[in-house]
């Protein structure tokens, strides 16, 4: 069976600090991978998606970036966090017409 991992589960960071959130998927190969952010009143906002190693599509211009160094690894990064980066970050992978989500990371920027 397929499993998706995210870490850390929660994170509190000061403004201006860097960020690295990691997502890994088990039990599948060459998945489409996604990063979403859920912020208050804004639903699920698609940030990045990747259809393969090194292939990143950005949906929303911002100070975040994503990388896919390995087939089943997807990383969300920032060089300098803003207050507005606070939110619940979700990694997901796509299998045919369904999308499966990880447990999420709660990021609070102070």
């Amino acid at each position: 069976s397929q499993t998706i991992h995210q870490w850390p589960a929660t994170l509190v960071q000061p403004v201006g600090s860097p960020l690295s959130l990691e997502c890994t998927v088990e039990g599948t190969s060459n998945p489409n991978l996604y990063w979403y952010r859920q912020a208050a009143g804004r639903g699920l906002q698609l940030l990045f998606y990747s259809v393969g190693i090194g292939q990143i599509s950005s949906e929303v211009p911002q100070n975040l970036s994503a990388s896919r160094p390995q087939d089943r690894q997807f990383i969300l990064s920032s060089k300098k966090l803003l207050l507005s980066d606070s939110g619940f970050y979700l990694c997901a992978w796509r299998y045919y017409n369904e999308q499966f989500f990880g447990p999420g990371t709660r990021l609070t920027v102070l």
Partner: protein
Amino acid sequence: DQQVKQNSPSLSVQEGRISILNCDYTNSMFDYFLWYKKYPAEGPTFLISISSIKDKNEDGRFTVFLNKSAKHLSLHIVPSQPGDSAVYFCAAIEENRDDKIIFGKGTRLHILP
């Protein structure tokens, strides 16, 4: 431009009654629709889906109805239970595209005792 719209941010329903969550879309190329349920501090989980060639799909207490001419779908939960209190997201997939799923902003459902 929002392609998938859930115009009700929240909904309160008495336990045992029917909950109806609505979703509208603008892209006529969408051919597959999904509903997800999300509890706080957890990832969304898949609930039920429907292909555009159907107008109804039922799974236990959950039924999704699709009206293609109106570009509208709805999720019916009957009878509503306390554990149904969550945020529900409507989502859509565009025909012949394998990259992304478009989500609505969600509707928070409160089941009242």
